[in-house]
Structures are given as structure tokens and as C-alpha cells.
């Protein structure tokens, strides 16, 4: 167990370091003088001097990286030049909104994707299977920002049931919060639902062919009992671990969804930062995303290891 954990961490750490190098190196892509480019639109000499100082731009690149990485490790993600605030504060402020959105989306994805996957695996090759696969293909092919626009068109403009935008914090009014979040959450969950359906279907198909399922059937366990007690339990492991890997997809999707529905989260922070040439914020958001992704991956691996006794023994 310990050696497995150690090996996993031994892989995760260099990955994280390399990812941080890539994110740091993004700065080098800026055309012209880095300090001038980083200062944004205003070109204030005072700001440029501050940036030159802050990012140690007179030092060689590797030294600059180390100084920057040291800051990141201490929670200093840099300073948003435009908002005059530390990036870490901005991230901490916006993250809960995106987390709520992501959790709602994941619930929607599970509620739609898993039952659909079970049905299509159990009824493999029937009309139900084709319909479920068709829906999954639809979910994977529809651009989620367009789905968002169409939902606004239908539910907000045409029917007038739901607000097209306007985020309300849950502390203010939970009902209004959910009203504002349900469309973005569905749009975000839609694509993940398709992926979950495919994972569930594949995992279930594999389990359905196993000997213990045949034995359970032969013993006279009811068909539903076989599916729920014997198959789903075993299929749940790959479904959950693969689901954790969809986190990146969820965050990518959140960037667009938040933009359409004006949800003030992580993704909107990033897009606004891109347009305001607020590069420190862009870097900060990306490094937080990468860190979360790597940590989640590690946790998924460990969870997979813990729930699978076969792996533990070897």
C-alpha cells in the first residue's frame, strides 16, 4: 500500500512541476517586452517598474521560475494588475461558485448517464441501446455554448420561466440561486452525461459477461437483483474513477457556460482576465486547475486501489 502510494506521488510531483513550468513559460510567448506586455493596456511606467521588480525580470529565466514557484508554493499567485488584488483572493472568491455549478452538473450527469448506460448494456443491441447511444452521441456533438443559447431562447425568451442570467448567492435565496443555476448546470452536465453513459455501458458489459453474474443468475437471483447488487456494484469502481477524470472537461465546459449565463465563477474570471490582459490571473487560474486535476487523479488512483482488493494483494 505504502509503496503504491509512494510510486503514485513520485509520478504526480514531477508532473506538477512540469505543468507549472509550462504555465510559467506562457509568459515568454508574449510579444515584445514582458514587463510592458504584462502591465496591460495602460502602460503606466510605475506599474511596469513594479512588474519588473515583482517578477525579477532582470534575472535569468531559471531563477525567475524558481522565485515564482517559491511564491506559488507560499500561496502567492501574483497580483492582478487590473483589479489591484492578489490573484489568490480572486480565485478563493470565485471558486465556490464554480464548485456549486460543477457539483450540480455532476449530479445531473450521473442521474442521466448511469441509468441510460445500464439500460443500454442490459439491452445490448436492442432499440433501447441504439436510442441511448444516439442520445450520447447527441450529447457529445452538441456544442454546450449553443445548447445554453438555445435553452435561454426557449426557457427565458419564449416561455419566460427562468432567468437568462443573474447569479444569486445561495446564502441570499436558495430558490433564486437554483433557478439561476439549473440551466447552466444542465448545459454543463449534458456532455458529461454522455461520457458517463458510455463508461457505464462499457463497465456493465464487461461485468455482465463475468462468471459470478452467471452464477448469481443460475442461483435464481432476480434479474433486477443481479443488475443492481452484483453488476452495478462492481461496475461502480471504473465509473467513479473515470468520472473523476471528467473534472477537466467539467472545468473547460464551465468557462463557456459561465460566460453565457454570466455566472461569476472561475471560468468567467479567466475569460475576463484574458480580455483585460490580466496575465497573472490567467496563470493563477490555470495553475489552480492543473493542481486540482493532478490531485484528483491521484485520489482517483488511490480510491481505485482501495476498493479493488485484487490490486491490493499483488
Amino acid at each position: 500500500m505504502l509503496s503504491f502510494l509512494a510510486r503514485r506521488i513520485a509520478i504526480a510531483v514531477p508532473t506538477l512541476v512540469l505543468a507549472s513550468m509550462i504555465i510559467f513559460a506562457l509568459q515568454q510567448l508574449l510579444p515584445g517586452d514582458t514587463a510592458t506586455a504584462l502591465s496591460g493596456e495602460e502602460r503606466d511606467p510605475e506599474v511596469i517598474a513594479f512588474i519588473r521588480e515583482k517578477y525579477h525580470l532582470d534575472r535569468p529565466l531559471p531563477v525567475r521560475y524558481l522565485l515564482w514557484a517559491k511564491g506559488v508554493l507560499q500561496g502567492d499567485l501574483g497580483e492582478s494588475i487590473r483589479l489591484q488584488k492578489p490573484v489568490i483572493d480572486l480565485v478563493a472568491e470565485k471558486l465556490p461558485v464554480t464548485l456549486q455549478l460543477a457539483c450540480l452538473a455532476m449530479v445531473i450527469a450521473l442521474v442521466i448517464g448511469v441509468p441510460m448506460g445500464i439500460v443500454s448494456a442490459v439491452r445490448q443491441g436492442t432499440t433501447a441501446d441504439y436510442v441511448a447511444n444516439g442520445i450520447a452521441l447527441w450529447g457529445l456533438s452538441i456544442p454546450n455554448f449553443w445548447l445554453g443559447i438555445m435553452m435561454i431562447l426557449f426557457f427565458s425568451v419564449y416561455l419566460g420561466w427562468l432567468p437568462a442570467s443573474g447569479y444569486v448567492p445561495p446564502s441570499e435565496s436558495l430558490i433564486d440561486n437554483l433557478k439561476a443555476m439549473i440551466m447552466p448546470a444542465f448545459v454543463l452536465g449534458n456532455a458529461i452525461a454522455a461520457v458517463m453513459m458510455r463508461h457505464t455501458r462499457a463497465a456493465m458489459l464487461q461485468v455482465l459477461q463475468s462468471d459470478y453474474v452467471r452464477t448469481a443468475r443460475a442461483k435464481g437471483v432476480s434479474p433486477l437483483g443481479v443488475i443492481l447488487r452484483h453488476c452495478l456494484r462492481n461496475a461502480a469502481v471504473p465509473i467513479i474513477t473515470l468520472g473523476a477524470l471528467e473534472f477537466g472537461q467539467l472545468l473547460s465546459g464551465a468557462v463557456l457556460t459561465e460566460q453565457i449565463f454570466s455566472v461569476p465563477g472561475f471560468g468567467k474570471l479567466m475569460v475576463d482576465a484574458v480580455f483585460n490582459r490580466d496575465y497573472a490571473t490567467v496563470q493563477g487560474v490555470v495553475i489552480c486547475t492543473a493542481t486540482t486535476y493532478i490531485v484528483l487523479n491521484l485520489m482517483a488512483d488511490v480510491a481505485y486501489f482501495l476498493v479493488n482488493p485484487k490490486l491490493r494483494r499483488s
Partner: protein
Amino acid sequence: MSGAEAAPATVTAARSAPVAAEPGPLREIWFRLRARPSAVVGLVIVLALVGMAVFADWIAPYDPSATNWGAVRTAPSLAHPFGTDEVGRDLLSRIIHGARASLAAGLTSVALAVTLGLPLGLLAGYAGGVIDGAIMRLTDALLAIPFLILAIALAAFLGPSLTNAMVAIGLSATSIFVRLSRAQVQAITAEEFIEAARAVGNPPWRIALRHILPNIVPAILVQATLTIAAAIIAEASLSFLGLGQQPPAPSWGSMLNVAKNFLDQAPWMAIWPGVSIFLAVLSFNLLGDGLRDALDPRQRN
């Protein structure tokens, strides 16, 4: 494809590419593809889109950039089947020309990703050891940054343009091909015909290029087709955010970005660009799924 001529004639077991060496591989693929209606539908839509992009100048009824202040945001009619936009441009013509940006982005970025990813994956899978470790850590690091987020960050630092969007999408997708080709190489290296090729004294580069590469082409082709679908969505997303194709050049994503502001007055502006993106992505997904079934039966379930 006859690696057998170059290899010593006695070594029939080491002949390259059992799949590709059969007579008429393209015919074979076509026959297998044709048996799947959904793949044929995908192929037909793909070809239609390519035709639309290539012949846009001849098909489009109007100049896609010609504004007409006398016909601003007019509903679909005989003169303008898809209606007009906020400055009176014909939407049908813009949709037809928009196919160029989408297909160019899809094809170019995936070509870039394969060009970079395939050699790296071959090297990692075949060389193993430290080289493998280094390449894989780099790939993991790139994969840790979600596709679209990396593309947005790259586009932000490179500056917004269609070319930069294509570079950003291509770089973000590279790791997919490194991983895939590495895994394929490792699986094939374990096969007996590689052992045989090595036993008769083929140098490593020849084994990699003559015996391994042809065998991993099907899997790469399938993945490339599916990645084109993802790249088209990514280009539309970047253009939607204003980081891809710059106005006034038409792109489905940027058309949606504008349409979003006129939803209650001109809903038709939002419908057709989205339908186009959906059809383009769907067709590449259908074709990719069909190719997988036809080329790579092991991955089917």
C-alpha cells in the same frame, strides 16, 4: 504498401503490416465502412462540408462580408433563406464561408497534433527507459491542464487570431496522440513478428518505421477523426469567446457570440451557426466511430 520487398525475402513472418499488406486495403475499409449506415451518413456530411468550404465562393448567394443597412436583422425569407445579421449580412453566405474556418481549424490543428505526437509516442514506446519517462511526464503535465483551458491560455498569450487558435488547439491535443501511439507501440512490440524482425538483424529505426508504424496507423486514424470533432468544437468555443477567427471574417463560433445579444429580436441568428457546428462535429464523430469498427475491431463493444 509492401514492406516485404525491402525485408529479406526469407522472413515472411516479419512482413510489415498484416492489415495494410493485404491487397486493396482501402477497398477493404470501404466495404466495412459501407456496412454501417451511420458511418456513411457521417462521411456524406463530411464530404458535403468539405465541398461547401472549397466551393464557398461559387455557392454562397452573397458576399459574406457585404453589409446592407437596408436589411438589418431581417427574418428568413426567399431572398435570405437564413435571414440577415445585425449589419445586414446574409447569414446563409456567412454559414457557407464559415465552414472554411471550422474545417481548417479541425484539420490543421489535428495535423499539427499528429505530427508532433506520433514521433514522440513512437520514440517513448520503442526506446523506453529514461526517454520514455521524460516524454510521459511532459505529456502528463500537458494533460493536467484541461484542453480548452490550455487553448484559451495559449490563445491569450499568443494573441487572438484563427492561426493562433489552431496552434493552441493542436498543442493541447498533442498529448492524446503521444499517449495513444506509445500504448500502441508497446502492444505491438510484444508481438512475435517484431521479435522475428529483430532476430534477422533489422536496425531499430527500420523496425519502428517499417513494422510498427504501419500497424498503428489505423488507431491513429480513428483517433484523429474523433479529435477533429473535438477540435471543431474547440475552435468554435475560442471564436465564441473572441479568441479565434476575428471579425469581419465569418466563423460559426463568433456568429453565435454576436447572436447571443439579439436573442429576443433575431433568434434565427443563433440557430443556424449552432446547427452547422453540431452537424460538423456529429459527422466527424459518426465517421470516427465507423472507422473504429471497420479498422480496429478490438476496441469495439
